């Protein structure tokens, strides 16, 4: 079976630290996998390896069946990424930023379509023509979400995506993730937000010191149990 996102014995050794030790993971289409762990546990390294930003010491990461290290450009047609802190060209408007990143992803949208994506991400209509330099972190995050959604990717890589979003926007984002997974998008989300992880995730994994120590379906966990599990592994 070809998984949308897969890691096989993925290992990353930095000169001073073993960041990831033999990660094995398979994520199917429509699944929302939430990766939990303390800072430095290896969550961002895992995302960087899937993005091809760093090369694995051994093992391999696959996106849609393609090995990331061997197909660095091709895999990016299948994935969208929202970092913890979305940074955009400050002198361009939200609309222009979305237009540029969509063009780079291979989509030439009309302005009305770009407006729809931004609105769908929760950006106020009056803000779309304002320079991004005037945006709050949450507004930039919404443009980042719009960029990811407009890409129609098979995989969504998220690194603390709700950071900076207010509770209402976070909730809307959760709904959006649900909608995307319903359409078959695989979501891989690194987060500290246990509540959000249990709410949107189909599975949660806990990472400690570069090792995926536990993976469970969220359907068998309530919020309290997830918290206990997290504390068990991280303290």
């Amino acid at each position, binding site marked *: 079976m070809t998984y949308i996102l897969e890691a096989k014995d993925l290992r990353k050794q930095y000169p001073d630290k073993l960041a990831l030790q033999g990660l094995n993971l398979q994520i199917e289409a429509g699944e929302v996998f939430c990766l939990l762990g303390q800072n430095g546990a290896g969550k961002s390294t895992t995302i*960087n390896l899937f*993005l091809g*930003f*760093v*090369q694995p010491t051994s093992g391999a990461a696959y996106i849609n069946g393609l090995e990331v290290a061997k197909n*660095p*450009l*091709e895999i*990016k*047609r299948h*994935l*969208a*990424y929202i*970092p913890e*802190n*979305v*940074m*955009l*060209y*400050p*002198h*361009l408007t939200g609309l*222009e930023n979305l237009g*540029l*990143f969509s*063009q*780079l*992803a*291979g989509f030439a949208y009309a302005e009305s379509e770009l407006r729809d994506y931004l609105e769908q991400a929760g950006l106020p209509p009056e803000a779309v023509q304002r320079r991004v330099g005037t945006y709050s972190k949450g507004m930039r995050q919404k443009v*980042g979400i719009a*960029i990811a959604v407009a890409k129609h990717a098979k995989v969504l*890589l998220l690194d603390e995506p709700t950071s900076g979003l207010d509770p209402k926007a976070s909730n809307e984002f959760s709904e959006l993730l649900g909608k995307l997974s319903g359409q078959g998008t695989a979501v891989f989300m690194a987060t500290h937000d246990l509540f959000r992880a249990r709410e949107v995730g189909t599975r949660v994994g806990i990472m400690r010191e570069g090792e995926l120590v536990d993976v469970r379906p969220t359907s068998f966990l309530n919020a309290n149990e997830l918290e206990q599990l997290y504390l068990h592994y991280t303290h």
Partner: protein
Amino acid sequence: MRTFWILFAAEWRHFKAAKGLVLLTSLVLLVGLYGIYYGTSEINRQRQHLAELPALARHNVDELKVKFPGEADAGEIGYYHTTFAVHHPTPWASLSLGQRDVNPYYVKLRLLGLQGQLYASENVNPTKALSGNFDLAFVLVYLFPLLIIALCFNLLSSEKEQGILTLLLAQPVSAATLVGAKLAFRLALVLGLVLVLSVVAMLWAQVPPDGRVGLWLALALVYCLFWFGVAFLITSWQRNSAFNAVALVGVWLVLVVLVPGLLNVFVSAARPVPQDLELTIKQREEIHGGWDKPKTETMNRFFALYPQFRDTATIKERFVWRWYYAFQHLGDQSVQPLTVAYTNGLRQRYDLVNRLSWLSPAVAAQTSLNALAGSDLPAHLAFLGSASRYHYALRAFYYPYLFHKVAFTHADFAKEPTHTFTSTSEPATAASGLGKLLISAGVVFGAGLLLFRARPVNPR
């Protein structure tokens, strides 16, 4: 390729938004236009001076006709009559003044000893020499690298430091395409400026539309390419913007200021040249000594050079012009070895600078542009050679009057030789400089590519 053009177009939007860069680019454009104005004005000033010289010479003849209403002794005419050896500029000199502002572009000549006259007007205004020329070549060679540095110091580091690079490289965009598009946009901008300024300067200076147009553009283009190569090399190192800026300005200081300065010191030490002042003093001492030497001795030395005048009667008078001009002539002869050493030494210095110009593309570019414009040292030495030959022609014209005791009439003024000299471009020197620049640009781009491949771009 589609991605490349999307990024290229985006760079235009980024550039427009960066007000400081727009201002700087506009400033360089204005400074370039001023350079064109400065160069053209200077050459026009020189042309105007040169155009006034025939009138001055005619005025001098008119004065002499009044002073000597009938037939005159050619010795008197030779002493009082002033004529000029003139060095006309090529139209290209407006674009690259070279040494035309420090070396005389005309020499006032009389029938007296030549060497003292050749260097009599070599004094320059030290304040002006300190500030130097502000022609288009100066703008291209010294200021354009600074514009390129300002445009490129944060080529990739800007996006990295702003955090945009992660989102950019999460798209199907390779770092090589991104850097390529950014470099290509800046290259197009700078080369557009070079083209606009060069074409304006060429039209203004009315240069003939021949192969030199292409050579000038190629020199300017490849020189700019070299600096883009340096920027690419530093970018490939993937350090922060502050480091890049300091490194690039450091390279500029070394290649544009330090190496040329050291090269000048080294060449002066390696190829010592007798001073023209020393030459002039020695000649003057020899000439002044001529008054006290026995006339027979002087004349015999002169007749050894001009045996055709040997039948001239022995001089018994206290003063005769032919004796006077004989010891003037011998004064020049006495410094002949020094004269040859001086001009050869200058030529050797120039050749050594040319050989070592691969150490600094700025030197290679400047010498090439000067060679193309015919405003370099060889052009000046060629003018001095031409002026010397002219002076010999004057002597050949006047000596028969003097030694055969033929009276000089008003009609004879029209028979007097005149001088004109227009420097020529040296496309071979310019082409050689272009070759050096091409190699330099190739080396820095090659090194940049190797480093870029060896250090994959990490957007974090």
